[in-house]
């Protein structure tokens, strides 16, 4: 019964979403307050229905109801409970439901926290989100119903792919989707403003916190996926330029550009068209990402077995959404008007350059991702575009971006003097060069590329420090004045500084690990040891262990340095009982300045094993940096000026 109820409530949700997409939009056009009043209640009903359907699917998973096809293909009675729950989004149908679920969560959040918005604006925003959910609900109901029954009912399920049986599976997809779908809010705000013609600084102030929150989730979601790949795939990489990773990176790049462009629109009223365009693009890229991942045009760890109708449907949906929003943009944008003027050297220009660079970066990733598909579709042969392409194009684009990251915050709005800026930043530049060379020297080798990477990191640190110092520099009264001034810095600005420091940490981590990591695959018998970068790894032996739903061979490897024992690692080779798949479980000793990483290959003659031993300097800074970026976003949204707005309305 439960699956049927869930299925039925999805159909009801489709009806409600349709009503939400049409009625308030029409009412806003006619100025009918009575009908516009329906927007919020309808959004609550839609939320309740979708959430109820999700709960039904969840219940089917927890009850191991294998008469539901989707449950039978993604779960198993022997699966631990947390992975039965995560099985919800382990396949195509459930991921779509998760998508819609996130969409309605955002919708209800907009309903709750945007009561201060003019009635027409709110009605239009909710209507746009309603229309987007119509598309996705239709897609789900017509081509990928998670509640499809299976007959005869199998005795047990097919199990969740062993790769996915990891805590990462519980948190990574929902967080990532929350970010992905969150750009729909900025999109809805943009469309509503284009229709209503009220595109101004207030609009930007409303949009900003929503965009930042979505961006935070996306940042953390991507970082989680990267960390998960690092410890789960067993070969220690943290980013593969896999098309699906790219699909999440592109909206992130555009979202980052959008955040910066919104700042200009809010503060100075400029770049309005540009900002709207970015809001549309960021969400379009989220949809494109969904298309790439869910249509089966790509093969990767994230792609599910597919049905060509699905790809066609998403492509059509994508075309409608992107086509209509761009037409609307082309039609309405000329009426938006220009903002305040600014000089060639100004904060505006720096932010404009930031936007251009981020968009070009997104375009580069898009090209590298779609080019193989295009060639294949045209029958011009199968190719793949690998990491070297992305590395050699993406990196050079990031150098000016990061240079501007130091300059932009210090530049003044409207007009800034270049000599003045140069003299304010000269100490930062000096510190950057010295620190970069010193770090290389401490690591024992100075490489040109590594020095460039380190300079990028230290440039951010030192320019943020300079910016901070200028804001708190005491004029005579010493420490108390520093404290007073520090407290006066707006939260949004602190958030920006923190987020930028996060980028610096990220750069440092990437550079250190790319330049100074050591990887080695060795054959080891019991008693053998190998030394990598001063760490000695001794193979103590293997034993068989049993997990909840797998059998494993666990090796014991003792790590020591200069004769003193540091730790013992136990990597495993697991065989999952249901699908009989082998799985490598790496063992990692994390550290602030290095990770020690051990994973097992296969057994070879005489009880020896091929063992993979890595020393990865500063790798945790990569994800630490992402978390700090997200923390910066959090600080920025909690700025008083957004709270006051909501507070006054509540």
């Amino acid at each position, binding site marked *: 019964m439960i699956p049927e109820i869930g299925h039925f409530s999805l159909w009801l949700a489709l009806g409600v979403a349709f009503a939400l997409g049409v009625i308030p939009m029409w009412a806003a056009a006619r100025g009918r307050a009575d009908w516009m009043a329906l927007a919020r209640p309808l959004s609550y009903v839609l939320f309740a229905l979708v959430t109820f359907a999700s709960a039904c699917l969840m219940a089917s998973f927890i009850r191991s109801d294998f008469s539901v096809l989707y449950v039978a293909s993604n779960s198993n009675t022997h699966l631990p409970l947390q992975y039965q729950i995560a099985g919800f989004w382990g396949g195509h149908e459930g991921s779509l439901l998760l998508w819609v679920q996130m969409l309605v969560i955002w919708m209800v959040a907009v309903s709750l926290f945007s009561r201060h918005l003019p009635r027409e604006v709110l009605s239009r925003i909710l209507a746009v989100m309603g229309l987007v959910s119509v598309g996705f609900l239709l897609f789900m109901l017509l081509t990928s119903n998670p509640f499809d029954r299976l007959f005869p009912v199998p005795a047990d399920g097919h199990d969740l*792919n062993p790769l996915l049986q990891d805590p990462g599976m519980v948190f990574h997809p929902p967080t990532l989707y929350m970010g992905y779908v969150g750009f729909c809010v900025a999109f809805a705000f943009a469309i509503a403003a284009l229709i209503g013609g009220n595109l101004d600084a207030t609009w930007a102030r409303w949009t900003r916190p929503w965009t930042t929150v979505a961006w935070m989730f996306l940042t953390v979601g991507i970082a989680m996926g990267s960390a998960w790949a690092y410890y789960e795939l067993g070969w220690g990489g943290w980013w593969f330029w896999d098309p699906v990773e790219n699909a999440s990176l592109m909206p992130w790049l555009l979202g980052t550009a959008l955040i910066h462009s919104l700042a200009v629109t809010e503060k100075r009223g400029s770049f309005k068209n540009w900002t709207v365009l970015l809001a549309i693009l960021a969400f379009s890229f989220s949809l494109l990402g969904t298309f790439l991942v869910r249509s089966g045009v790509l*093969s990767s760890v994230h792609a599910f077995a597919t049905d060509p109708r699905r790809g066609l449907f998403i492509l059509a949906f994508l075309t409608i959404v992107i086509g209509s929003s761009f037409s609307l943009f082309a039609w309405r944008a000329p009426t938006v008007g220009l903002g305040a003027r600014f000089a060639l050297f100004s904060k505006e220009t720096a932010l404009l*350059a930031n936007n251009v660079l981020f968009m070009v970066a997104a375009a580069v990733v898009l090209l590298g991702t779609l080019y193989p598909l295009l060639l294949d579709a045209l029958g011009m042969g199968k190719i793949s575009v690998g990491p070297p392409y992305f590395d*050699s*194009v993406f990196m050079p684009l990031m150098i000016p971006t990061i240079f501007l990251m130091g300059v932009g915050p210090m530049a003044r709005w409207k007009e800034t003097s270049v000599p003045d800026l140069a003299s304010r930043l000269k100490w930062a530049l000096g510190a950057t060069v010295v620190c970069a060379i010193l770090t290389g020297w401490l690591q024992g080798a100075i490489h040109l590329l590594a020095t460039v990477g380190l300079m990028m990191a230290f440039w951010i640190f030192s320019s943020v420090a300079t910016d901070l110092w200028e804001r708190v520099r005491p004029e005579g009264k010493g420490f108390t004045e520093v404290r007073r001034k520090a407290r006066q810095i707006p939260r949004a600005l602190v958030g920006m500084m923190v987020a930028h420091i996060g980028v610096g940490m990220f750069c440092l981590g990437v550079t250190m690990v790319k330049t100074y990591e050591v990887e080695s695959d*060795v054959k080891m018998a019991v008693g053998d040891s190998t030394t990598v970068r001063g760490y000695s790894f001794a193979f103590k032996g293997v034993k068989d262990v049993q997990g909840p739903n797998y059998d494993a061979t666990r090796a014991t490897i003792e790590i020591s340095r200069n004769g003193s024992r540091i730790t013992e690692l136990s990597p495993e080779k697991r065989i999952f009982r249901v699908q*009989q*798949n082998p799985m490598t479980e790496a063992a990692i000793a994390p550290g602030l300045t290095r990770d020690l990483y051990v994973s097992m290959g296969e057994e070879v003659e005489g009880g020896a094993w091929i063992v993979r031993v890595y020393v990865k300097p500063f790798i945790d800074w990569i994800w630490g940096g992402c978390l700090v970026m997200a923390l910066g976003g959090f600080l920025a949204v909690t700025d008083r000026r957004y709270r006051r707005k909501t507070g006054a309305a509540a």
Partner: protein
Amino acid sequence: MKTRHKRLAIAAGVVLVIAAAAALILNAFQSNLVFFFSPTQIESKEAPVNRTFRLGGLVVAGSVKRTGVAVDFMVTDTAKSVPVHFEGILPDLFKEGKGVVAQGKLQDGVFVAKEVLAKHDENYMPPEAAEALKNAAKSNEKTAASLVTGK
């Protein structure tokens, strides 16, 4: 500075960034596009020497030989087979008789792989490998047909 000049300067900057990116892309494409070849194509010398490419097909049953860290095996598209040499750890789902994609260079008739790509579940066939098998099947039919007409 006049507004017109300012606009020109900004436009020039944007064009410069895009041009630089385009140059970088073209340059990267020239050296980093990885083409795909099947064992049959390698046999007929269509594959480049000294350039990285991808090879796909099935691992020939009984062909996997380990010597320390190194491993040798044959990849077939059912028509022709190519010997592959690889040093390192094979992905978990590497199995004899199953599909595989390897990336590397051809050296003296042996495909020296830098990377052997993982499949993500046991039923999944890398599309490149599937394509190679399909083409081989087609050419098998053709040869069979020509034999028939030849008679």
